[in-house]
């Protein structure tokens, strides 16, 4: 058994100076390997959120300007640039939301308020159900099939 005095400050540098911290660097094989591409694509879908919100602002603004402006806006939506964008946006936003909901249980604590958290599969199924229900009912309603 050693009788030497413990060195509790063994990590202390011999002389004062700046902390020797390695500069930040990306993980190995970033961004091409493993889950990094999906992670980056998820972040890039922020562009769909922003642009689609701006397109919606344009729609509401056009409604506020009267019938002629609204009809001009609808005409604009049939331009190929908007059509291509909306196909990409619909695919991107759907994938983004389903991925967000799949990852959602990992963000939740063991207890949610007074209740024990439900099983992960139950949470994911509920959120997927919410998404597809709102999509179906909202589409039928806004498209004029309901009411």
């Amino acid at each position, binding site marked *: 058994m050693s009788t030497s005095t413990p060195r509790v400050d063994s990590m202390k540098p011999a002389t004062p100076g700046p902390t020797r911290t390695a500069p930040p660097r990306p993980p190995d094989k970033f961004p091409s390997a493993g889950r990094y591409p999906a992670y980056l694509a998820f972040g890039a879908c922020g562009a769909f959120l922003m642009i689609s*919100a701006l397109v919606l602002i344009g729609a509401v603004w056009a409604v506020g300007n009267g019938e002629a402006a609204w009809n001009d806006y609808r005409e604009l939506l049939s331009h190929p640039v908007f059509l291509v964008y909306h196909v990409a*946006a619909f695919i991107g936003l759907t994938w983004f939301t389903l991925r967000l909901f799949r990852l959602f249980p990992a963000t939740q604590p063991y207890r949610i308020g007074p209740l024990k958290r439900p099983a992960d599969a139950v949470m994911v199924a509920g959120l997927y159900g919410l998404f597809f229900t709102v999509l179906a009912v909202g589409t039928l309603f806004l498209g004029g099939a309901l009411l």
Partner: protein
Amino acid sequence: MKTLMLKLEPIIWGLFSGGMMVGGILLPVFVLVVGLGGGFGAVDGQALGYDRIQALATHPIGSLLLLAAMALPLWGGAHHLRHLWIDLGGLKSDGLVGALCYGVALVGSLVAILAVFRLHG
């Protein structure tokens, strides 16, 4: 300033997370019906006619949903794009990119509020 930011943190995170949830749930409906259905002419013309859309948009629930679907996704999207930029390009230009992203979100939110007020004016 640091204390103020700490106090505002729940609100700021609420904007980001609310933007993801609200944008992810509501915007696909708009994109599908108005963007794709309207653009390809697949939706009945009367359904997207001015009178019906104006009536939906000026209904209190419709106005509230529109405001949420316009303003919140701007913040969620800005947060994602800023962090994507940090992941790919580091922190060197974060001040500029962050200001640009959140600036667009702030101005867009104000325009969204104004757009909804104009409907009721």
